[in-house]
């Protein structure tokens, strides 16, 4: 990442009492590790709230997204109390319409439903990250002498249907373009190459590889027909 580029801070409540706290923590980690690793940083909420000035400066240095498990909004309220307004506030229980309460608190008991919940929330966090970066780019443009924005926009996501559920894969159209340019035919044999390439940018659990492969073949064929 170039100097001066924005790092968005994500502060998760990680509430221990409720499953949504686990989802907030895992979704935040997913964005940090896999979805927007170059544009995001984090800090432990308890350290931020009880820390010294250096830790409290975190949210003044970075546009910050809070991720709260429930409507008590501990992360949002704590961050705003010490560092001013946050750029976005995600509430897991709202995104999941209360269905997160059925998920597991411990990773030991995680099911497919839990993973889907984490994915859904992480998608929302990633969207908020993209929006903040985009807004900050626009601000730079408005203040600049030139009329064009020099910074790159976030990669557009493409939605594919995996085993009946919509999944957004950032940059998928670019991946398809690249593979098409390299001669990958849009037939039933292209699945392995598609999966191999997409896995570099998008986390896919081993047990889900087959359903992703099917979805990617279908999406690639459709994309090439356009």
């Amino acid at each position, binding site marked *: 990442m170039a100097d001066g580029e924005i790092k968005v801070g994500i502060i*998760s*409540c*990680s*509430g*221990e*009492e*409720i499953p949504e*706290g*686990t989802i907030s*923590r*895992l979704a*935040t*980690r*997913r964005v940090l*590790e896999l979805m927007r690793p170059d544009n995001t940083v*984090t*800090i*432990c*909420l*308890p*350290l931020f*709230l*009880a820390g010294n000035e250096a830790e409290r400066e975190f949210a003044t240095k970075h546009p910050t997204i809070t991720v709260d498990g429930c409507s*008590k909004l*501990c*992360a949002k*309220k*704590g961050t705003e109390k010490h560092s001013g307004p946050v750029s976005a506030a995600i509430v897991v229980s709202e995104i999941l319409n209360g269905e997160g309460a059925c998920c597991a*608190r*411990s*990773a*030991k008991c995680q099911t497919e439903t839990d993973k889907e919940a984490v994915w859904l929330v992480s998608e929302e966090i990633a969207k908020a990250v993209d929006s903040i970066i985009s807004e900050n780019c626009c601000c730079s443009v408005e203040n600049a002498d030139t009329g064009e924005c020099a910074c790159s926009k976030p990669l557009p996501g493409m939605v594919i249907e995996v085993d009946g559920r919509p999944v957004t894969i950032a940059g998928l159209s670019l991946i398809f373009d690249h593979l098409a340019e390299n001669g990958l035919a849009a037939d039933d044999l292209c699945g392995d190459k598609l999966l191999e390439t997409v896995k570099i940018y998008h986390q896919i659990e081993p047990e889900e590889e087959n359903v992703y492969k099917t979805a990617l073949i279908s999406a690639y064929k459709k994309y090439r027909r356009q």
Partner: protein
Amino acid sequence: MTIDVKKQKIIVMPCSGIGKVHGLIAREATYAVTDELAPDSFEPMCLALLVSGDEEALAKIKKMDCITVDGCPKLCAAKNVEMAGGKIVRSIRVVDAFKNYRGAEPGTATKLADDGWTIVSEIAGGICNKREGEVS
């Protein structure tokens, strides 16, 4: 393992530090105790809720004994419980548990490997085997 369920529950408060595997181990050790080994004797409390000044959480922490489980030497859980006026009967540091597992590969802040789960079991067993009055 024998737990006297007539006694008041003890709060187990992990730091859940999001940056390192130690935070996840603290969190999972808490769930191993409160959800599996001794749910009648221990319960978790949201650290963020306490730190954010929730009145109900503050009142509860002053009434009940608490075991804190911190991932790193910054001891966020222990310090915050103390500041809230809670009584810590035991303060556990995950980094100390690692001393018995030199070279272990515990996993990441997102997912524990087998060594990580082994450390979780050790910490959880330690919490269940020692009750109030013990401060390490």
